[in-house]
């Protein structure tokens, strides 16, 4: 697209680039790619905190029409509807969005998602084996998408490893309500949980609870090892670079989209990192 050698990416994400969760996973990936290719080869702009879907629409449209970007990323499944409307208007711009597998049958749209149930399964199994009280608490945002995938995987894993283990799941209906997520974690502890897990950016409070209550924490999306400190056991970390590398290669080869990617443990897109525990 852009005629010079530099590969330019523009990305929009719903939460902050430092949320230790969804948005940060993509931001870190872009940084990683930049490291690999070098600043002179790869540059990107990143609009974070765009939870208002229409604001993302404005950004995406501007980037697309500017013609300056080789790849425009809509990092958030709530942006899909926009892309479905936008992409056909700019057939020679390459778009990518996630987490989803739907390219809308458009050949300038890539879709990517994470098989977060896999890491969820491992976390769950491990948690089940480690719990002394036989009770595990899960704090989820709303019961959809990546979050649900991880939680379902976690529950399945736990049951598989130890059928009689109790896994209490609480969806607080918000990606951002830290106070409620924290109290939910405390409620789990009060109900006998000695291991906690959760997904999305509002779990930071829950992690603190695990630390204070001497419980264990399993995480996902990004590494929360530092925050969780000695409470952190294992984290499923997204490595979107795996997907981005392919997409960039394709685009350079002139293929603007039409493919859906899944990061898995197998393809190295999902990595289980140990906590300080």
């Amino acid at each position, binding site marked *: 697209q852009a005629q010079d050698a530099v590969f330019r990416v523009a990305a929009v994400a719903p939460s902050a680039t430092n949320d230790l969760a969804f948005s940060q996973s993509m931001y870190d990936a872009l940084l990683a790619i930049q490291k690999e290719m070098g600043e002179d080869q790869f540059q990107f702009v990143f609009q974070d905190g765009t939870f*208002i879907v*229409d604001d993302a629409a*404005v950004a995406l449209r501007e980037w697309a029409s500017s013609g300056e970007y080789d790849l425009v990323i809509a990092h958030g499944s*709530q942006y899909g509807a926009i892309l479905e409307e936008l992409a056909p208007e700019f057939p020679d711009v390459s778009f990518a969005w996630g987490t989803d597998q739907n390219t809308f049958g458009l050949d300038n749209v890539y879709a990517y998602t994470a098989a977060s149930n896999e890491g969820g399964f491992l976390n769950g199994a491990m948690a089940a084996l480690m719990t002394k009280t036989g009770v595990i608490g899960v704090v989820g945002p709303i019961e959809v998408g990546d979050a649900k995938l991880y939680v379902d995987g976690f529950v399945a894993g736990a049951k598989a490893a130890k059928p009689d283990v109790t896994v209490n799941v609480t969806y607080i209906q918000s990606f951002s309500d830290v106070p409620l997520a924290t109290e939910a974690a405390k409620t789990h502890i009060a109900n006998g949980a000695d291991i906690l897990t959760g997904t999305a950016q509002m779990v930071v409070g829950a992690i603190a609870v695990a630390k204070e209550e001497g419980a264990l924490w399993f995480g996902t999306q990004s590494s929360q090892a530092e925050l969780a400190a000695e409470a952190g056991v294992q984290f499923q970390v997204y490595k979107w670079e795996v997907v981005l590398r392919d997409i960039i290669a394709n685009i350079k080869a002139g293929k603007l989209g039409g493919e859906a990617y899944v990061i898995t443990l197998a393809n190295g897109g999902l990595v289980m990192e140990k906590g300080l525990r």
Partner: protein
Amino acid sequence: MNFRPSAVTLVFFKTFANSLLNAWPLLLAIAAAAAAASLLLLALNANPIQAFSSMLQGAFGTTNATAETLVKAIPVLFVAIGICVAFRGGVVNIGGEGQMIAGAVAGVTAALTLGPIITFGPLLIALCLVCGFLAGALYGGLAGFLKAYFNVNEILSTIMLNQVAVQMMNFLLNGPLLDPAELGTNHIPKTARIVQWAELPRLSLSLGDNFELFTRTRLHFGLVLGIILAIVIYVLLWRTTIGYRIRAVGQNERASRYAGINVRRQIVLAMFLAGGIAGLAGVVQVLGLQYRLQTDGSPTGFTGNAGFNGIVAALFGGLNPLGAIPASVVFGGLLVGAQKMQRDLGVSAALITAINGLIVVFVVSSQYYIRQRARRRLAAPTSPAAAAAERPAAAAALEQQA
């Protein structure tokens, strides 16, 4: 009907003329806000000049920018118009968000269910709008009813009802209204896309082939609806008995009761209308822009804060639907421009939020002085000279008495 076309233009002129005559406090406020913002920008080693120019660019720089500004202004305008009715009726409606959502849910449901049956676009759209209006109206009316008959403070009830509405939406979008295609997959909860002929047409006028405006932008017919509605509500409030009663109750309940006006009914009616208009904002967002309803769990994800921004716009517009039009556009420009600034300078969204806050505070602080100056101008004080001239007269009168 007794609608003097002069009325509208007059109001425009008056407000405009006054604001020009008394512009300096406003300019001062904007300057102050800019200064404060500049300090923030400098602190983040970003260049203020560059920042503001890109803000202006993003708001009105290109046709598309202007279009996006207007697009952003549309729901704000609708809510603001509703707020005018509520506040004029003495009801502090903070429930724009919830009422918008109620309207959107009803509107999209209508579009999805009636879409296949009714293939005549205008009719289908009209029906969706009506459904959205009614849903919002009932939701707002509920708060009005609770206030009028159970003395439940509306600020409390509307704030709470906002949360109830969004949870309702989450539930519906996750179940009954979920896009059949998405069943089983657990993607973000969203409805199916509405049929083509339920969409509000895009606003692009091309006069001849050399002049065209807003072609290939997202600007949609909602803008026209909003402006028409503003005029209609202006007429309703100041030219009809209905508006007269609403305003009377808003100003003085006791005198209204004395005059034989059913106070409670007016309160419910005001909230009914306000909610309905906010509901329209919701439908218009769906039919004109998103073509489906989806949720990320938060109200803002869908409303984009229009429910609150509408209050600000309404108050800036002097609680006058016509004043709300420019107010909403300015507000839309502020938000859209700020986003652009974020992209160009790579500054964080947080900074934008903070700066918007500053602008709102500074500008609203200037309003009072603007009003003052306007008042002073309207009534030219008697000159002391004239007063002195009158004195002998009084003296003469005194002699007569003695």
